[in-house]
């Protein structure tokens, strides 16, 4: 090997600490990018593959009732339809022991379980369901403690538990683990379905068209609906699916994008750290550069030498970053896929990601290093070898020096720490920047978390943060309310009317003019209905046909306050409604809700005084009381022969919604932690560079009587000073950019959360910064205290 390269190698080895620091910081950035990019690729690929493998239908049609196999065959004869398959889905009660508590669950059945055509389930273990033998959803074994093969499940049939044996583990692409799903799914034969659910028939249709296009599918759905309506049946709502793209791809891509942005941000922080460290390394090497020039080396030769050192840093960092990044990327992908009930593939290193990592692992440090190196190499030889070279004897001239040295009357050690902190403005700026960015992200991510939770609370507060029960049939409002209000724990109750309808702008027609809308009739002066208005006013009983429209749907339709829309209500035909207010509501499908006065709506529906949905407010708003009310209602009305079709406990749903968004915010927090690690590495690096540069001064301090503690205090003080300064910057940035961040994130995942700054996080970050600063100062400060007078004065 050439002697000059040997020198570089040995210098690297001599500065093990700093070499390690550079390598680690490059690694963190490269690792973050590798992890996120490979996870994005793996997740998208795997989602697409399993989606295609399941032979996806082009649309799912949720019926307002059930149809039989003959109807399905007749629908298949429609020319615009290629194939139709149906499945049955019913909510049931289940438990695993006779003396256990009933749990909510659902059973799903196909005409030919083993031979499904569309959105096919896969048999993961055991056998397909047979009479008395059922299948269990694979992901629900963990999520809801559903039994494994050989276990027993009791279903409630006519109020009695009936035992069934699990003989297969299945995966249904449309069923998700908790918290994406709220209860366990079981797969049963058609006969068993009829026994357990009490009826027979298909309530969901999976259809395909001869040639996929959104228009073709919409057309086919219309034709199917016409045919069904002819038989007194209708489609409640439908969902169009892309044949190649998984139905959750869009939201997953959104999350992936956010993670990518954060990974690039941490790579950016790493680069700053690398710049700082290489700057210091070069500064230390200036005299040697001067000597090399004196004995005949050109600037090009020296530049190549140091660039090759940095190249080695890059190589070494890849050794760390590639395996960890690949492992973490696979783990992240596996975790995300598991949430979506998509099977993960075995561990895999993606060649493209590997190339990307190699590229950024080698290029970024070279780019970060080229400027410090060129700067160092450009210093004239005379200056480089003279003792009065760079950075020495300059203190006192700059503004910041005069500012910090102007602060008098504080303890001398504090003064030293304060003045030393800002001696190297470039280095300090980069260190502060890394810490500030990590802090700002911490505050932003915390605020996101808080905003999500607050938004969910607002929604549940505004739309009945209560117990909701739905009767199978419409009931007389004036009869039911007193019954409910006489029950324990109930404060008051009211009835709402729910209808799914089509809305359009007056005068428009044809494909694309109709928008699905979930119309809800609410009582005037309801203590439960307190919507969040984004424009206009709330409902007034004196209004004629007035409506509050979801702001998102209004945006889609291009209508606003004062506009009229036409609503086509089932069994009631078209009627005109005036928009008096816009509301923020996440309900319905893709935020397509509308609210009208219940009496006005009922008159339009020819349904005066009747309703099926009850909203019950408990004496206290907590999970126990609400669950008690729910259980009581089911029992009470069952005894009266009034079947409750479904029931929901708002607090339960609120918690569930919060848990779903928690998944995302936790992911973001993980990336923030990564940034904080880079930030504190940067701080630690800066301090240890300072220790090395100030050996002589430390020696002098020791010579004039400073104890180890005094020296330690000066450096820890410097660390704290930097940490706290960065905190001062991070707070306004974090709080200032927070709304933009939450808004951008909201639009990516389609959740228009309201911004609520997490003020707590400001203080939490304060605590973290203090701890990080002390921890980061620890090693450098300790090294400083170990410097002896003799050694420091003889140094260089």
């Amino acid at each position, binding site marked *: 090997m050439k002697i000059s390269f040997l020198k570089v190698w040995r210098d690297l080895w001599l500065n093990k600490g700093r070499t390690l620091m550079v390598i680690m910081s490059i690694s963190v950035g490269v690792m973050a990018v590798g992890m996120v990019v490979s996870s994005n690729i793996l997740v998208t690929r795997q989602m697409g593959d399993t989606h295609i493998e399941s032979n996806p239908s082009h649309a799912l049609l949720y019926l307002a009732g059930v149809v039989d196999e003959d109807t399905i065959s007749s629908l298949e004869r429609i020319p615009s339809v290629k194939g139709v398959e149906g499945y049955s889905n019913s909510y049931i009660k289940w438990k695993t022991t006779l003396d256990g508590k009933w749990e909510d669950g659902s059973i799903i059945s196909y005409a030919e379980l083993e031979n499904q055509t569309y959105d096919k389930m896969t048999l993961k273990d055991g056998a397909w369901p047979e009479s008395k033998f059922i299948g269990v959803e694979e992901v629900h074994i963990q999520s809801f403690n559903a039994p494994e093969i050989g276990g027993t499940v009791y279903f409630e049939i006519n109020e009695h538990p009936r035992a069934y044996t699990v003989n297969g583990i299945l995966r249904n692409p449309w069923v998700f683990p908790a918290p994406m799903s709220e209860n366990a799914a079981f797969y049963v034969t058609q006969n068993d379905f009829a026994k357990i659910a009490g009826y027979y028939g298909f309530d969901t249709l999976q259809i395909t068209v001869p040639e996929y296009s959104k228009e073709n599918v919409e057309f086919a759905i219309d034709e199917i609906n016409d045919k069904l309506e002819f038989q007194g049946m209708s489609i409640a709502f439908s969902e169009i699916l892309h044949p190649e793209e998984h139905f959750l791809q869009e939201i997953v891509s959104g999350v992936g994008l956010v993670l990518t942005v954060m990974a690039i941000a941490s790579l950016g922080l790493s680069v700053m750290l690398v710049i700082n460290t290489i700057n210091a390394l070069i500064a230390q090497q200036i005299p040697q550069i001067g000597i090399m020039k004196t004995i005949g080396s050109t600037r090009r030769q020296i530049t190549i030498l140091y660039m090759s050192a940095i190249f080695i840093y890059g190589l070494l960092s890849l050794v760390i970053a590639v395996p960890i990044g690949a492992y973490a990327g696979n783990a992240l992908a596996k975790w995300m896929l598991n949430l979506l009930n998509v099977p993960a593939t075995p561990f895999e290193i993606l060649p493209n990601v590997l190339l990307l990592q190699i590229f950024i692992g080698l290029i970024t440090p070279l780019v970060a290093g080229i400027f410090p190196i060129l700067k160092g190499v450009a210093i004239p030889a005379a200056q480089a*070898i003279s003792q009065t070279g760079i950075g020495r004897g300059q203190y006192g001239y700059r503004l910041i020096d005069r500012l910090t040295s102007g602060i008098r009357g504080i303890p001398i050690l504090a003064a030293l720490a304060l003045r030393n902190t800002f001696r190297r403005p470039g280095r300090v700026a980069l260190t502060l920047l890394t810490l500030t960015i990590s802090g700002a992200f911490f505050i932003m991510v915390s605020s996101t978390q808080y905003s999500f939770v607050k938004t969910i609370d607002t929604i549940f507060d505004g739309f009945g943060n209560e117990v909701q029960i739905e009767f199978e049939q419409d009931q007389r409002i004036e009869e039911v309310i007193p019954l409910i209000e006489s029950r324990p724990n109930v404060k008051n109750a009211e009835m709402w009317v729910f209808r799914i309808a089509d809305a359009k702008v007056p005068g428009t027609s044809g494909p694309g003019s109709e928008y699905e809308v979930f119309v809800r009739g609410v009582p005037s002066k309801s203590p439960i209905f307190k919507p969040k208005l984004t424009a206009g006013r709330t409902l007034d009983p004196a209004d004629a046909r007035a409506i509050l429209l979801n702001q998102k749907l209004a945006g889609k339709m291009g209508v606003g306050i004062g506009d009229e829309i036409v609503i086509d209500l089932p069994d009631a035909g078209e009627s005109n409604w005036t928009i008096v207010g816009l509301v923020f509501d996440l309900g319905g499908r893709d935020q397509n809700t509308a609210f009208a006065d219940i009496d006005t709506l009922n008159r339009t529906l020819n349904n005066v005084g009747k309703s099926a949905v009850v909203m019950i407010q408990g004496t206290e708003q907590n999970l126990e009381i609400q669950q008690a009310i729910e259980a009581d209602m089911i029992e009470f009305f069952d005894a009266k022969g009034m079947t409750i079709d479904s029931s929901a406990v708002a607090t339960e749903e609120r918690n569930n919604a919060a848990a779903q968004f928690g998944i995302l915010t936790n992911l973001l927090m993980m990336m923030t932690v990564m940034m904080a690690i880079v930030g504190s590495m940067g701080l630690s690096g800066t301090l240890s560079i300072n220790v090395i540069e100030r050996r002589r001064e430390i020696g002098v301090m020791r010579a004039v009587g400073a104890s180890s503690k005094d020296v330690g205090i000066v450096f820890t003080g410097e660390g704290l000073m930097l940490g706290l300064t960065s905190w001062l910057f991070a707070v306004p940035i974090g709080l200032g950019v927070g709304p933009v961040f939450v808004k951008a994130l909201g639009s990516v995942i389609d959740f228009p959360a309201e911004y609520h700054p997490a003020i707590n996080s400001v203080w939490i970050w304060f605590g973290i910064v203090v701890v990080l600063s002390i921890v980061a100062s620890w090693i450098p400060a300790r090294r400083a205290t170990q410097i002896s007078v003799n050694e420091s004065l003889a140094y260089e």
Partner: protein
Amino acid sequence: MAKNIIIDLQGIGKTFDGPAGPIHALKEVSLKVYSGEFVGVRGPSGSGKSTLINMITGIDRPTRGAVKVTGELLNNMSEDQLARWRGKNVGVIFQFFQLLPTLTVMENIILPMEFCHAWKPKERPERAMHLLDQVGMTDQAQKLPNMLSGGQQQRAAIARSLANEPALVIGDEPTGNLDSKSADKVFYLFEELVKQGKTFMMVTHDLGLASRIPRVIEVLDGDLFENGNRPK
């Protein structure tokens, strides 16, 4: 043998910008040194000795005047050209030895050969050993500089300065950091170099050593004097 001029300074001056105004480290000075000469430079601290030396080695540039060394006009050369020229033609010895701390003595000596592509790579170690032999340091070849005494380090540095067989060797207080015994040994080496035909120029504060140098230039407040007169 006709004497060649190896150093030719013509009216050079050097002004630094100090915090308290310009410092005239060298006022218009001229000097001629012939090949094979042994020249000493003396003068009080801050008088401009190092500045003069840096002009000759091309480590620094004059504010005015022409510098011609080994027949080359240094004024017009780029920094890299100067580095290459210096590596090949001038051996530089410092007061603080300035061996690279992470290279062994031997490697330190090979380094200038490598930079200037002098000799075939295979021949370099042998050549380095030869130089070390000249300064009596063959036993220390594989040691790191920090393991040597000051005198040993300086002898290694002398060997390094000779790596590319320069015609001219220049030292700025090369004995300044050595005890008198080591200084003596090193000075003896310089005398040997001159006997071998090298031109040697050194700054020294040591009156005893200076008295052993055939030609001595005095630097006083940025001016040069030789036997009381300004040299031309």
